[in-house]
C-alpha cells in the first residue's frame, strides 16, 4: 500500500511536523514499505475477536479525593522556554 505525498503531508499536519521536501519523499517510500508489511493483518479473520488495549487486566485504581501539595510555580516553570510572571508564554494565539 503506497502512501502518497499528499497523504504524508496531511499526516504531518496532524502530527505538527514541518517536514522538508526530502523527508516527505523519503517517508512516503519508507512508510509505504512498512504499510505493505502490515497489510498481512488484513488476511486474518478477527470479526469476533475482542481488541486488547491493556496488557494486563488490572482493576481500576482509584485515589481518594484529597489535595496534595502542588509544585511551587518556580518549579513548574523552571524548564519553560518562555514565561511571563508565573504563566507560560507562547506566540500570540489568533483564533
Amino acid at each position, binding site marked *: 500500500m503506497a502512501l502518497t505525498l499528499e497523504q504524508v503531508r496531511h499526516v504531518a499536519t*496532524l502530527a*505538527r511536523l514541518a517536514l522538508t521536501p526530502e523527508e516527505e519523499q523519503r517517508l512516503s517510500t519508507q512508510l509505504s514499505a512498512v504499510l505493505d508489511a502490515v497489510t498481512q493483518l488484513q488476511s486474518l479473520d478477527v470479526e469476533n475477536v475482542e481488541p486488547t*488495549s*491493556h496488557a494486563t*487486566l*488490572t*482493576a*481500576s*485504581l*482509584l*485515589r*481518594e*479525593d*484529597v*489535595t*496534595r*501539595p*502542588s*509544585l511551587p*510555580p518556580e518549579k*513548574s*516553570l523552571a524548564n519553560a522556554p*518562555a514565561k*511571563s*510572571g*508565573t*504563566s*507560560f*508564554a*507562547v*506566540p*500570540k*494565539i*489568533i*483564533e
Partner: protein
Amino acid sequence: MPVSDFQPVIGLEVHAQLLTQSKIFCGCSTAFGAEPNRNTCPVCLGMPGVLPVLNERVVDFAIRTGLALECRVNAKSVWSRKNYFYPDLPKGYQITQYDLPICEHGKLLIDTPQGEKLIRVRRIHMEEDAGKSVHDAGGGQSLVDLNRAGVPLLEIVSEPDLRDADEAVEYLKALRDVLVYLGVNDGNLDEGSFRCDANVSVMPKGSSTYGQRCELKNLNSFRFVKQAIEYEISRQVDVIESGGKVDQETRLWDVNKGVSRSMRSKEDAHDYRYFPEPDLPPLHVTTEVIEAVGHALPELPRAKLQRFVSQYGLPAYDARILTAERPLADFFEACALRYPDAKKLSNWFLGELLRLLKEEGSTVSSVRFTPAQLAELLGAVDQGTVSANAGKDVLAEMFLTGRSAPDIIAEKGLAQVSDTGAIEAVVDDILAKNAGEIEKYRAGKKQVFGFFVGQVMRAMKGKGNPALVNELLKKKLGD
C-alpha cells in the same frame, strides 16, 4: 419560506465542573482564582513519564448524576485519548470517555407552554478540563495558565429533542438545578463552571431529516444561549432561503456584537484520533456501588416542588421559589416542622427572608437564627404579642444578630398592647380631641374611621393591638 415554516432542532452539550477537592487525575487543588500555575504538578503539567490516577469522587459524582437523570450506568466504561494540539492542553491529548461512557440513555423533564416535555439525555461522560490561555496579554504573546487543567468535568449530552431557544434555556435551567441539588456542580455560568455548547440545525416543518448542524460555543449565560440560538436559527434560514447550504462548522458567539462568527476554517478540520487510554484500565462499577449511590440520592428539584405543592398546600409559584435551592427548601421544611401554617410561613420566606438575604448578599446557609426561633416569632405574631409590622423588624434584628424574638421584643419594647383598659383610655382621649371629625363620621363620612385608627396607633407608638383598637373605636362611635 418564512422562518415559521422551518423547524429548529437543538441539542445541547453541557460541561459541568465537578465540586471535588482535587483534580481528576492528580492531587492538585481545584480552587478557583489562584495565581497562574499555582495549582499544578508534574501530572497536570503533562511532564514526560507521569501517569494519571483517577479521583474516586469523580466516579461517585458521575454515577449520582446519571441516576438523577435516569441513565443506565455502565458496569464497564472506557477512557480514551482525544488528540489535538493547543497550548492549554499540556499532554497534547485530553483524557475523556468516547466509545463507552459511564452513563447513557437518560432523560430530563422540562416545562414548556404546551406542558411537560421529556428531553432525552444521550450520554454522560467524565473528562479533564483544559487550562486557560490569555490572548490579550500584550507583547505579541499569549499566556498559559494550567491551574484548570485536570479539573474534573462531566459532559452531559442531550438528544436533539429541543425545538426552540426557550426550550433550550428551560432544559439548561432544569439540568443546572439538578446538578446543584446533587452537590456535584456550583451552577455558575459566569465563572465557566457550567458551560454550554449548542448544536443547532433547521429543517422544513414536517420533514424528518435533520439539516446540517452548527455548533455554537461561548454561551456563558442563559440570555446568550437564547440570543445565540435564535440568531443561529434565523441565520441558517437566511442561508437556505438565499439558495445556499449550511456548512457544518463551529461558531463563536460574540457577546458584544450579538452575532456569531465561524471559529475554525475547513483546512483545520479536526481529526481527534481517539483511541483507548493505555494508562488507565477500563473503569468497572459494581451493582453494589450503583445501589449505594442511588440510596444516598437526594430528592430532586422537580419532585420536591411537586411535594411542596401537595404536602404543604402551597401555590406552585411559592413552591418553585422555595425549592429553587436545596438549602432554602431544607430550611423551609425545618421551619414548617415547628410552624404548621405553611402558606403563612411561605409568605414570610418570600416577603421577608429572601429580601433580607438579597440585601445582605448572602445565602440561607448563613442565616443566624434557627427554625425554632422563626417559629417562635411567627407564633408571637399570631398570638398578638407583637404586630405583624413590628414582627418584620424583629425578624430583621434576628437576621442580624441571631437573638431570639422575645429578647428583641422585650428590649426594643415592641410588645403589642392588648390591654383593653389602656387602649380605651387612648381612644377616649383621641375622640375627645376630635369632636368635629366625630360629627363628619356620624354624618356618613365613614372614611374618617381610618383617621381615628391612625391617631390612636400613633399615640400608642404603633404598639396597640389593631383588632382591639378597631373594636373599641367602633363601639365608642356607636356602630
